[in-house]
Each structure stands twice: as C-alpha cells, then as structure tokens.
C-alpha cells in the first residue's frame, strides 16, 4: 500500500449509476471497497463500459451489478455464472465480470462454480468472502469455518470451510488470486490481471460484514476487521509462514496462459461442423 504520494487520479463516478447512491450496504461493509477496487481496475485497463457485462446472483455482494454503469444482469441466487456463460458464448468479445458472495458462489452456486472453472470459460469471478450470509441475516455459509458463530450456529459451527483458492485451482480455473479489503491497491492489481487473463479467473477478496459475522464473532468494527486482515494474511511464500503456518497467503496462485479457453474450443467445433457448407 502507498505510504506516501499516490499520483494516480481516478474518476470512478463515470462508471456509477449515481442515482442509486448512497448505496444500501451497511456502514463499513467491505463490499463497497471491492466495488471501488473493481471500478479503478476497469478505469486503469481503459475498458469500454459498453463491452462489459456484469451478471450477479442474490446477496449483499450481488447488489454490485445494480450500481455499475455497464450492461448488467441481476439474476438468481447461485446462478450468475450460468447466465454469464450464456452471454459469453453468444458474444465472446464481451468482458464478463461476476461479483459473488461466498454463499452465492460456494453454497447454492457451488456446482456452477466448479463447472465454470472446469470449462475454463473466459469469465472473471470475484468472490466477496465475508464468511456469512449477509443479506438474509447472518446464517453460516460454507466459508464460515469451524468454531465460528452465526445466527444459525449460536454455539458455533461444526462445519469445516472450503479453501476457495484450492477449490478453484483443483476445479481448473486458470487464474486464481486472493486479497483483502485492507489491501485495496493489491485488489486493483489482481482484478486487472484477472480481467485481462483469458480463461476462468477467480479473485477471492476477504470482505468484512461488521453487521453479522463481525458482531456474532466479536471482531470489532469495520476498521478492526480490516486490521485483522492485515495481521492474519501474508504475501505468498512469506518467511513469516515458517513461524506461523496459520497465516493466510495473498497474491496470485495460478496464472496459466496455456490452458485452452472454452469459447475458442467451441469456435473450433463450429468451424469443423460447418466445413464444406458455408
């Protein structure tokens, strides 16, 4: 993070539907920081907003699609990647960006998630991991983790959590990265690389929900939760891991430019099938 002069100027409002602001998220909700990082990434890449399609499911996180002045589809819980797949296959030159909650992506949408990864279709999924179902009142999700509290686990959960990075990697995603809302400039950089990458890209961003996860687990206010992200994470391969293996790594875990992309493969099938017909 910059400690001194940061001479980049942003104009994120050019990509906002300002009429819907102030947004609905609670004070200190990390999802707004993810939105900011995403818009700065789009601005730095100089993308044409008319060639960006954002599809989202349901959740506080999924509300992002209503705030951006791109093409947007606010669809059904867990199914945003299926809609994105349809849009992408119809017009492969479009940039598909899918913001997802941890529940949206890995509970109800877990199957869509692993299969989008397996196909390696050129879509960027941003998993906004607050370890809770924020929108519906703080039920535990597959990312809450053992021993944490939620409204549906007043005595703490007995469920283990997924590791989003390992899951996405094993399922075949060709770009996989992780950061946190504390590391907002790192988020900009990772989102830029994820969007530029051709293939299925996953960026997991730890995003605080002070209202539910934070309150239930006595993590303090939003600033405090971000301090915890700073304390409990390190760049990939950091020396600190030797002393404390419980630290969580941030950065780019997979960046495979060789893996065949799904729309390209589909185009080849079309060419083969059409041979001699024209």
């Amino acid at each position, binding site marked *: 993070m910059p400690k001194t002069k940061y*001479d980049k100027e942003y104009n994120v409002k050019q990509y906002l539907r300002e009429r819907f602001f102030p947004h609905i998220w609670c004070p200190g909700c990390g999802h707004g920081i993810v939105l900011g990082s995403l818009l700065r990434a789009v601005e730095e890449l100089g993308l044409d907003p008319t060639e960006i399609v954002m599809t989202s499911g349901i959740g506080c996180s999924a509300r992002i699609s209503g705030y951006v002045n791109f093409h947007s589809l606010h669809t059904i819980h867990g199914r945003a990647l299926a809609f994105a797949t349809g849009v992408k296959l119809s017009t492969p030159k479009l940039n598909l960006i899918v913001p997802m909650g941890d529940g949206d992506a890995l509970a109800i949408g877990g199957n869509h998630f692993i299969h989008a990864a397996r196909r390696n279709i050129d879509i960027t999924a941003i998993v906004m991991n607050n370890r809770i179902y924020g929108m519906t009142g703080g039920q535990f999700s597959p990312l809450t983790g053992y021993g944490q509290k939620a409204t549906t686990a007043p005595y703490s959960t007995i469920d283990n959590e997924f590791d989003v990075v390992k899951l996405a990697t094993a399922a075949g995603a060709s770009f996989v990265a992780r950061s946190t809302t504390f590391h907002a*400039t790192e988020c900009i950089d990772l989102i830029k690389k994820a969007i530029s990458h051709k293939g299925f890209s996953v960026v997991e961003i730890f995003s605080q929900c002070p209202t539910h996860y934070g309150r239930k687990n006595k993590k303090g206010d939003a600033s405090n939760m971000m301090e915890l992200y700073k304390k409990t994470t390190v760049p990939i391969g950091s020396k600190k891991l030797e002393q404390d293996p419980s630290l969580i790594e941030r950065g780019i875990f997979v960046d495979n430019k060789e893996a065949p992309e799904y729309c390209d493969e589909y185009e080849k099938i079309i060419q083969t099938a059409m041979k001699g017909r024209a």
Partner: protein
Amino acid sequence: MGKLKLKEHLIGRNWCKGCGICVHFCPKSVLELDDEDKAVAVRPEDCIYCKLCELRCPDLAIEVKIQKEDENE
C-alpha cells in the same frame, strides 16, 4: 508530472456513512468524524496524499485531489 501538492479533500456528505475507516487508517490523522458522523479533513496541511482514505472508503465518498505545485487553484 511536476511536483505534486494537495488541492482538496472532496467528501460527499450524502454518501459518507461515518464508518470511520478513513479516520482509522489515515497515517497522518488528517481526518475526523464531525458531530453528524461525517468525515472531515481537520488537518489538511498534514496530508501526504497517499489516498489510502479514498481507496478504502466503502462508500466512494472521499476523493483526494492533487495538483502540480505550479498550477493555480
């Protein structure tokens, strides 16, 4: 770019929800919440325009504007 200096902190009072993130993380204690729980730059002269406040504001409510030293207001 020539030498840079601070122009102003643009804080959208309608968008700011008083979460205090910008206040908490400002390395120079430039920002405070006022009695309406809105962020204000109380010590702008100490600002090093690192933009951490802008980049981490969940409400996109704060912008740190800079200009070249020789530019007029």
